[in-house]
């Protein structure tokens, strides 16, 4: 089927666009923009992680590494060289791609839990490296001088530009996720997920396919990191490499349904809304990771296919829409 004839693709793009356009019609626009920035960022992180975890079957606790490294490199260019945002974003993407490529060569030969453990180790290693790397400001990180925003017509305008860039990027991520899933490359990845040895016997060059999947899934958090920290105005190791954030992204993918295009999108949106309610309560604020863990346990035990996967199984007629 041609992509533009697939109602499933359109539904995913429309939902993303609807989230993105919400601040335009909301009463308190800056507030809505901040809220939807978080949601879109999660959608992008979850959908890109899904390429590795959902399509290829490699659980990755280190997705945020690319968010952090991309963010740092982009931020460095923004603050030290006053590079334009798109140059910084491109640099973030390239950094993430390069790191994923090299990392992939080293750790993608590990399977299952061993790969997952290695990704945790690398997150910690990246954090301590940046903490001790003086050009990036060491443990205190970096802060953008206010005049950097002047080039974008002031801080307020800069925030809107960043937001629009994120909306476009998220739409692109959804499109890429769909194109990968429905391509020959994607079929190879899913064969690897189901049975890597059998996939190789069929002629799938698993080491290469996995490396490219890893690179592709890393590029997007690399860009998102640049947008996020540009919006924030400062970056520090603790914010850039939070293992907790990696875990939350995994929960989002599982919650919505891994291996689907629509799944991580719904999972990210639902999780962020849920988190929004919980954060208001001081009790939950302190135990949000425990809540995420509990949620993960419930999903694995009772709805391993996730919300969208469950709907697809329960109502086969919906499959056309829920790809």
């Amino acid at each position, binding site marked *: 089927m041609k992509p533009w004839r697939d109602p499933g693709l359109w539904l995913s793009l429309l939902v993303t666009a609807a989230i993105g356009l919400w601040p335009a019609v909301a009463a308190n626009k800056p507030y809505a923009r901040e809220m939807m920035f978080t949601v879109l960022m999660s959608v992008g992180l979850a959908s890109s992680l899904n390429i590795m975890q959902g399509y290829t079957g490699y659980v990755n606790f280190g997705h945020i590494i690319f968010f952090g490294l991309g963010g740092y490199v982009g931020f460095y260019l923004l603050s030290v060289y006053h590079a334009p945002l798109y140059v910084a974003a491109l640099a973030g993407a390239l950094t993430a791609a390069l790191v994923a490529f090299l990392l992939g060569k080293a750790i993608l030969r590990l399977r299952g839990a061993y790969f997952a453990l290695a990704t945790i180790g690398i997150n910690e290693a990246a954090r301590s490296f940046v903490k001790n790397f003086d050009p990036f400001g060491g443990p205190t990180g970096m802060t953008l001088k206010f005049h950097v925003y002047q080039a974008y017509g002031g801080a307020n305008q800069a925030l809107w530009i960043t937001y629009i860039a994120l909306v476009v990027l998220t739409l692109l991520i959804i499109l890429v996720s769909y194109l990968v899933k429905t*391509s*020959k490359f994607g*079929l*190879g990845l*899913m*064969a690897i*997920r*189901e*049975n890597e*040895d*059998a*996939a*190789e*016997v*069929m*002629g*799938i*060059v*698993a080491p290469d396919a996995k490396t490219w999947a890893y690179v592709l899934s890393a590029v997007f958090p690399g860009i998102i990191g640049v947008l996020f920290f540009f919006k924030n105005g400062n970056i520090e190791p603790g914010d850039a490499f939070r293992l907790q954030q990696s875990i939350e992204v995994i929960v989002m993918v599982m919650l919505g349904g891994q*291996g689907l295009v629509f799944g991580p999108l719904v999972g990210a949106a639902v999780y962020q809304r849920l988190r929004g309610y919980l954060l208001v309560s001081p009790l939950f604020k302190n135990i949000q990771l425990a809540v995420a863990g509990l949620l993960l346990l419930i999903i694995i035990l009772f709805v391993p296919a996730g919300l969208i996967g469950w709907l697809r199984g329960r109502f086969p007629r919906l499959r056309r829409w829920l790809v």
Partner: protein
Amino acid sequence: MSADIILRVENVSKRFGGLQALSDVTFDLPRGQILGLIGPNGAGKTTLFNAINGIYPPEEGRVLFNGQDITGWKPYRVAKAGLARTHQIVQPLNDLTVLENVMAGACFGHENHPLGRAREIADEVLEFVGLAERRDLLAGSLNVAQKKRLELARALASHPYLLLLDEVLAGLNPAEIAEMVQVVLKIRDQGVTILIIEHVMHALMNVSDRVIVLDYGKQIAEGTPEEIANNPRVIEAYLGDPKLAEKMLRGEV
């Protein structure tokens, strides 16, 4: 090497720790033939397949395929050279549909088809092995006999020059065996060379042009099915039953 030898196995040996799984196995397979491989459980038959297609490279010896030394190649490289195999223990891609399983076979083999063409080939092959009606089911939902057909379909979809079949008849009932034997013969008639491991003796004797017997990793006999059935060493390897030859040929073993 003469042009019509598609596979040459030369002095191949393979050890697993202290166990000599294959010792000094040597044979030629002429293009277009069916070569049967028999031997008691644990004789090293599957290990020989693994040594040929690169799952476990042999410690000694060489494997030549279409005149090319493929010893130690990775399985995907061997597949891309036009050699396909099935697994004794079926390896379906459970969460993909039957069609997608077979498409993967067509996509990534030596012909390297795009998805559209792979879908056409997959539909032809599914028709051929009798799984067409189940094309949209998940592979994990098939029963064992159907999974065996799926293994075969996936391998066939790559349009291999050489097909290694590892006990595709095991666990099938007599009617299914008869059907599958016809399928194997048709594949040969399409010009595919076949190396087949089988425990269902009469079926193997009926389809094979020649037969090799392995016992404890050693090649103890080679010849036409009749020669093998009357070979005293083979009879000894199979529990020393003197009436074995007659039984084999009558289809009672």
